[in-house]
């Protein structure tokens, strides 16, 4: 029996799910009022008040998705904010990164300002964006944009700087014009750097959207959490966090799929495909 479930590559998935189940079981046992005598708190209701109860949390999630079916609108808003912040931030980061990497003088002039903007804790801009763009989606997109932009920008800048001089000289000898160099050498080279940062930047776009919603909004998953917190409904807060986590995992997976399709020219470590 043990040999069947002994931890190994084959039973990896089983054990991963096992860890998750164990966490929920421990959580349940520790928080369910009346199940075990209170260890830390004064009475047996307080653990549930502070940490929520897994069964109620799952009931909440079930209700969101299949009962009242009222989470889809919020999820959609959060997704749209994330995707917009990600797309606009990436496009702008790519454009500005290419521009500054190819005109050293402009880069030298703007260098201190870029450093300053990057080291500024940008989440603090959220209240200003709320004033500028209102409580709708635009302010969340703006916040996500500021987070994504710099990640992509720095990667593109680095990517263009590190184009192999030989590849560049070779392309020039093959007759590439400045435009063609940009299109066929700088851009593909920078893209590989952008992709290496894509997991981080899609995560940050998501952070921007949720934090923006949390600080002030009328829709979105962050708004749901904010509402529940206002009434000390810790189960709903936890449910919101679980949904957001699953959602972030799904986004990360989607990025992975796109990455594998577009970056198939890159050697992966440990891959032996030489002939």
């Amino acid at each position, binding site marked *: 029996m043990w040999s069947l479930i002994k931890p190994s590559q084959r039973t990896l998935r089983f054990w991963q799910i096992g860890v998750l189940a164990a966490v929920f079981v421990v959580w349940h046992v520790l928080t369910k009022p009346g199940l075990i005598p209170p260890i830390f708190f004064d009475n047996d209701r307080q653990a549930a008040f502070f940490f929520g109860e897994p069964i109620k949390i799952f009931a909440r999630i079930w209700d969101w998705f299949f009962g009242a079916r009222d989470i889809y609108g919020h999820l959609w808003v959060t997704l749209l904010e994330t995707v917009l912040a990600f797309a606009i931030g990436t496009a702008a980061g790519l454009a500005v990164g290419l521009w500054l990497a190819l005109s050293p003088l402009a880069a030298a002039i703007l260098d201190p300002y870029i450093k300053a903007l990057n080291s500024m804790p940008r989440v603090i801009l959220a209240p200003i964006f709320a004033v500028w763009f209102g409580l709708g989606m635009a302010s969340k997109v703006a916040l996500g944009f500021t987070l994504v932009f710099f990640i992509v920008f720095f990667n593109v800048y680095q990517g263009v700087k590190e184009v*192999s001089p*030989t*590849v560049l*000289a*070779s*392309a*020039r*000898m*093959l*007759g*590439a*014009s400045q435009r*063609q160099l940009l299109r*066929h*050498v700088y851009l*593909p*080279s920078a*893209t*590989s750097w952008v992709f290496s940062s894509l997991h981080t930047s899609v995560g940050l776009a998501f952070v921007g959207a949720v934090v923006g919603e949390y600080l002030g909004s009328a829709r979105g998953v962050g708004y749901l959490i904010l509402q529940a917190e206002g009434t000390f409904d810790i189960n709903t807060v936890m449910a919101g966090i679980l949904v957001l986590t699953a959602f972030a995992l799904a986004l990360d997976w989607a990025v992975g799929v796109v990455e594998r399709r577009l970056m*198939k*020219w*890159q*050697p992966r470590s440990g891959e032996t*495909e*030489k*002939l």
Partner: protein
Amino acid sequence: MLAALALEQITCTFVSRDAPGQRYTAVRDVSLAVAPGEFVSVVGPTGCGKSTLLNVAAGLLAPSAGSVRVFGEPLAGINARAGYMFQSEALMPWRTALENVIAGLQFRGVPDAEARRLGEAWLKRVGLGGFGDRYPHQLSGGMRKRTSLAQTLVLDPDIILMDEPFSALDVQTRQLMENEVLELWAAKRKAVLFITHDLDEAIAMSDRVVVLSAGPAAHPIGEFAIDLPRPRDVAEVRVAPRFIDLHKAIWDVLREEVLKGYERQKRAA
């Protein structure tokens, strides 16, 4: 006869970016001409500025003094009549072998179908018929060099510049590639300027060998016409008595420079 490529009194002085007072003259007063259809090799000790000369001929580097003439015309900017095979990896890693080969055709606006047809034909000619859809990292070093060769030759350049193209290959692959290059060259008879530090390779392949002195301020110190009969096999020609005579004559000139260059590098270290 009008030279395909003529370097006239070329001097290249580099200024250190950190300390503008520090100057390094890589080559001084180098004049070198390659006739159409001629295969010329330049040999010299390491660090003597051979690659600098080639970059000047390619138009990638502007000389401090002197001029370059291509079929009589003064060169300004990139040398559009020349193809360049680099010492290090020059393939675009994000393009497949075929896409790399046809890159130059695409830059010149050749229609895609036509470019692909030519590209396939050249891949076959360098022995990579079925490998067009591989990415560079999926090819061995020798295969990447063949792809580079096809990439350069598909444009049918009048002048071919080669910068130690086979130095990274193992001996066997290297001899195969050398023979292949000679065969392709014999069919088309382009002007070739070939840079190498390997005297054997230079003699086996060329019509003429130019010996460069040790740097700094390297300049030609000897020129030898290689009168070995063609077609040659680079492995077999090495044991011909005439080859050995030539090798000895050139080595006598080169040896002193190699020692000088070595001493200089040791002192600097």
